[in-house]
């Protein structure tokens, strides 16, 4: 199955980022094709390479790890609004426009949203 994922919340405040990460890992492990994880609104902060969480899980590294297996794309406009430049993105993640999300929506069999309203 082709799966697309949208993440709407940032790191640590809520559990949605962790859930999106673990869901993606599980889907890939089961042989599903994850077309990508699109980080929207505060979700872009999960790709901030400056995250430091001594002694705890580092969400930026976790999403970097996902980036080696699927596309992890941060919404460029959302990132700019939050002062997150390309140079601050963690390895394996990238910045993209809504066109990347639209492609995912068109090509997926299932699309899941984590966090948000």
């Amino acid at each position, binding site marked *: 199955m082709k799966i697309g994922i949208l993440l709407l919340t940032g790191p640590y405040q809520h559990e949605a980022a962790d859930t999106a990460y673990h869901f993606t890992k599980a889907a890939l492990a089961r042989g599903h094709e994850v077309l990508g994880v699109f980080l929207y609104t505060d979700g872009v902060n999960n790709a901030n390479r400056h995250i430091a969480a001594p002694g705890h899980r580092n969400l930026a590294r976790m999403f970097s790890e996902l980036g080696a297996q699927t596309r992890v794309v941060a919404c460029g406009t959302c990132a700019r609004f939050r002062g997150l430049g390309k140079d601050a993105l963690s390895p394996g993640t990238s910045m993209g426009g809504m*066109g990347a999300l639209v492609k995912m*929506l068109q090509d997926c069999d299932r*699309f899941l949203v984590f966090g948000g*309203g």
Partner: protein
Amino acid sequence: MPAEATGERPILLLFRRAPYGTVFPAEGLRMAEALLAFQLPVKAVFLEDGVFDLVKGQGNKALDFGDLGAAFAGLVATGLKELLVVQEDLSARRVGIEDLVDAPVRAIRVTELRALVDEAKVVMPF
């Protein structure tokens, strides 16, 4: 040709939050604008406190907050057929359909929402 005319299953945007308290209504609006720009079939339903997103005469210039209601009404000019609002949630908040923006707004029963969710390819809550 608009995707809706091809029989493509719609993307259903659910607006559940009041304007200005969180970023979600504004970001949902931006999502709707983007999807419509790419000619994807979009349906928008306003429910729970999201019914306040459509109240006319919003905005606060002193706080640099624009009129979200007017912006939602503007979606109709970019390809959205209508704005759907849940009647029960309007009634619970003592908001009348006449209090809403001047745009094609249609009140639906909450039971109709189930059919909209069933037909949608994707549901995005904001």
